[in-house]
């Protein structure tokens, strides 16, 4: 349909290449163009098939990560009546329910530890992991208005989701500390606060990275295949029962334990419990978790980068 216009256009004069003399600047913020860089500041071209994240670009957008995280937190607590109280209530209620049914009625063996502490120390990492991964699943789709209108490294969206949940995690950790002190000094339980507590920062980093890895993966897959988001809650629920969240790995028969700890979350959660309650950690499980986290992070970063290019077109 453009043939005629093409001919028309050939008769048009060459583009007005000489720059229009800039009108007298009204503001002192007017800019001079005398020193354009020799090399382009940015090049836009089809990206190579597999590439890593551009660290310089991520660093340049660090403030956006902060604001996106802040938005996530503020929005969630502004809409609710009790705000932050929910973050406190949710794990406490879960702990109460599990204590009644599994601790008191079903008498799950706990190696002599108070069941509420056992279950809370499991729910602490688990709640963070499950809510963050579920949130990541929908994060890109939910932020399609940003993705189709502005450029920024897309990975900031799942990353902000994970970071916001990390803030909730910090609150839960504080509750854990209160519970521990309560059991130790008010109820006079024999709780050993050991050097294992020093492993806590390492475990938090490990859990966060593992969650981020899985979060990136599910968020990017959900852009293309919406059934990932559908399947996620069911899978997460399943994950809770194959991980030592509401029970300890002691109830798993010895011969199956190696298989059991192939689940990286099993090692991490038992690690948290070990650090907080002074129990032994499963070294094999932790080793699996470290390796799984590294592999997962590399794979999902590559997949994320690969699918990132088409987010704006398909979301």
């Amino acid at each position: 349909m453009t043939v005629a216009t093409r001919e028309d256009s050939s008769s048009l004069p060459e583009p007005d290449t000489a720059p229009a003399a800039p009108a007298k600047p009204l503001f002192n913020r007017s800019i001079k163009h005398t020193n354009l860089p020799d090399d382009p500041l940015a090049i836009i071209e089809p990206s190579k098939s597999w590439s890593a994240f551009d660290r310089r670009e991520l660093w340049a957008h660090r403030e956006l990560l902060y604001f996106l995280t802040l938005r996530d937190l503020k929005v969630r607590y502004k809409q609710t009546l009790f705000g932050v109280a929910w973050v406190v209530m949710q794990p406490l209620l879960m702990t109460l329910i599990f204590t009644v049914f599994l601790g008191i009625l079903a008498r799950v063996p706990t190696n002599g530890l108070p069941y509420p502490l056992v279950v809370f120390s499991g729910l602490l990492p688990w709640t963070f992991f499950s809510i963050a991964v579920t949130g990541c699943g929908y994060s890109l789709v939910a932020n399609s208005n940003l993705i189709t209108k502005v450029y920024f490294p897309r990975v900031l969206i799942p990353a902000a989701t994970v970071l916001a949940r990390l803030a909730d995690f910090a609150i839960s950790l504080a509750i854990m500390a209160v519970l521990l002190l309560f059991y130790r000094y008010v109820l006079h339980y024999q709780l050993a606060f050991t050097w294992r507590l020093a492993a806590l920062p390492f475990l938090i980093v490990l859990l966060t990275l593992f969650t981020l890895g899985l979060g990136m993966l599910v968020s990017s897959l959900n852009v293309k295949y919406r059934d990932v988001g559908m399947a996620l809650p069911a899978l997460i629920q399943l994950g809770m029962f194959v991980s030592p969240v509401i029970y300890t790995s002691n109830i798993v028969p010895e011969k199956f334990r190696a298989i059991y700890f192939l689940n990286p979350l099993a090692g991490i959660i038992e690690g948290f419990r070990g650090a907080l309650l002074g129990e032994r950690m499963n070294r094999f499980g932790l080793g699996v978790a470290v390796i799984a986290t590294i592999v997962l992070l590399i794979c999902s970063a590559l997949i994320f980068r690969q699918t990132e290019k088409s987010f704006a077109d398909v979301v």
Partner: protein
Amino acid sequence: MPTLFEGSMKPIIRVSNVSKQYRIGKNQPDRTLREALSEAVRTPIKRLRQRSHSSEAIWALRDVSFEVQPGEVVAIIGSNGAGKSTLLKILSRITEPTKGRIELYGNVGSLLEVGTGFHPELTGRENIYLNGAILGMPRSEIAHKFDEIVEFSEIARFIDTAVKYYSSGMYLRLAFSVSAHLDPEVLILDEVLAVGDADFQIKCFNKMQEIRNDGRTILFVSHNMQAVTRLCKRAILLSDGAVVADGPTDMVASAYLNSGLRVPPEREWNNPYEAPGNEIARLRAVRVRTAEGQVSRIVDIRKPVGIEMEFEVLQSGHVLTPNFHFYNESGVYLFVTGDLDPSARSARPAGRYSSTVWIPGNFLAEGTLRVGSALSSPEPVVVHFYATDVVAFQVVDTHEGGSVRGDYKGPMPGVIRPELPWTTQYTPNHQAEQWLVGEGSVL
């Protein structure tokens, strides 16, 4: 006034042979994972072959090349679907080109809408920081300009109120004032900025002139030929994804306007991926109908003409106002009309809708009219789609009588030609001779 940098000029943007392909048809993105997996497992070879098969591909941009010098203000014009938005999205790095290369020698800020990322639950203050960060402003810069932004928006009293309580005008003013304080060397602007009330449009326009006078480089995508000719010295015309004209605005603009008759009187979208819209609503078809209900390019000036919009509402519970925008062949924005029926002002259930506006006979002037079709929500203002130049029709006067022409056959000026009631009173005046003044009279 001679410029220092004449001659040895280097472009600030260099676009070389950029093409963008979209895949449609079988390789749809939202097929289920199961299908994708089973297909990959069962027919790996066929899948690979299909990948290289290009029959289901459409080229939104073909081999686009141009350069922009620092300080230039360039308009990118073209009809709906010519590739303007795609070019804008590639320049803004929202999507990648399939081929070609763009070099940017200055930092680029792009505004494809105002208030991107605004969250209704957050206060004005919080949204300024969030929106600023999304647009790429460092926090220190936002803090530095904060007072200026608030002052410009004229909503200082409500700055700590959640944005969901704002009127649509307040919302837009705040959103625009953040955008207006963006300070990049190259500014990429989409015409959707030109929404809102008349005051606000004037404010937008003045701000753009101010930015231009600052010596900034601007790429401006628009349909509004008045704005384009006033703001830009140079225009690039895209048609069917390719650059068909590049030169002084008035010449390119007239090349564009002369091609107006190519816009059809009926447009349908059968593929949801091409249809304008979002997750709330999508446009399905727009048609020009005569009083008899026929789809037609030619419309009798004496008879009503109906513009019909068929759209699919995908999410229930939104207030959706269909509206049409009318431009004449000189690019003058004649009027906009929206559905005022109570049913159009309350939340709608999902489903297919068809809305028609009837423009009375003897109202439009002769000539070609281009119609833009949009669907928006009023509070807060959200434009779900705005398909510009989606259909066109020609209003003709057959000179058979019954039109506003009466018996006059010559050219009639004016952008509209309404039939209006006239009243005349006659009083016999026997002293009429007093008014009969001879040519020689000195009075």
